[in-house]
């Protein structure tokens, strides 16, 4: 139990974000990018873009999940260290949005990997993205968000 607490502490202090585009229109991507710029400055919360999958704590997924990107997304999620959390940004990542009926789109992110926080919008404002991440951090602190890999033991 004590080990588990410590692990969460690490996330609580400085969560590193990993951004993955599964077939978005770039609208969400540039807003995620805008959210890490000085005007909003998420480093106040210790949030930083991670250079590689192995360093990420929170996976930010943008875009409708295409069939080709779905395999990549799954592999990426498995490569992330525990504890890990997933944030779905934008209508496409949540449910497929306007592309839900297309032949090459699987649908939302939650059809492939478990999602902790949904941020609606097309695209959501940078404030909304920050708001979502801050909400996730609060959920982790209060123990409401449980990293899915913990259950395996």
């Amino acid at each position, binding site marked *: 139990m004590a080990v588990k607490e410590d692990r969460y502490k690490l996330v609580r202090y400085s969560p590193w974000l990993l951004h993955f585009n599964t077939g978005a229109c770039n609208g969400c991507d540039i807003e995620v990018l805008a959210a890490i710029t000085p005007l909003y400055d998420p480093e106040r919360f210790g949030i930083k873009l991670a250079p590689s999958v192995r360093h990420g704590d929170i996976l930010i997924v943008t875009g409708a999940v*295409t*069939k*080709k990107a779905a395999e990549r997304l799954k592999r990426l999620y498995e490569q992330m260290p525990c504890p890990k959390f997933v944030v779905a940004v934008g209508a496409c990542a949540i449910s497929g949005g306007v592309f839900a009926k297309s*032949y*090459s789109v699987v649908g939302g992110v939650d059809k492939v990997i478990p999602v902790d926080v949904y941020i609606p919008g097309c695209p959501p404002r940078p404030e909304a993205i920050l708001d979502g991440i801050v909400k996730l951090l609060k959920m982790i602190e209060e123990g409401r968000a449980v990293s899915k890999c913990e259950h395996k033991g």
Partner: protein
Amino acid sequence: MSTKAEVLSKLAIRTEVVKPKRIVFVIRPEDLRKVFEELIKTFGPESFYLSTIVGVDLPAENKMRLDYYVHFIPEGETVVIRTFIDRSNPVIDSIIDIVPGALAGECETFDLLGIVFRGNPYLKRGFFVPVDLVQKGIHPLRKDSGV
């Protein structure tokens, strides 16, 4: 110095118009390479570029239509070279060795509509269509593809 209309109408069967005011020269499919060779010879490679290749499936007439949109830079004018091919055997000569810019358009048209460009070594299936559709041999933009 001959004009575009003169050069192209020599090989054209008839002319049409795509809105707004883009002249279409309908040619026979076997003349396609000749047209582009003629264009390069007359105007030089720096005066035009191949803008778009549009393929349309016409199951009612059992045909496929290919439009090559060529943009002439000095005049700022787009001219369409249109040709019809048989739907049951959609094969046409590739122009990739004359105009390398046709690469993207030809590969895409092959993937989406299944038109084979004879002489293009880069044609491949399954790089944009998901694997399950490729295995079924479906070309998604054909009207009877059912996707």
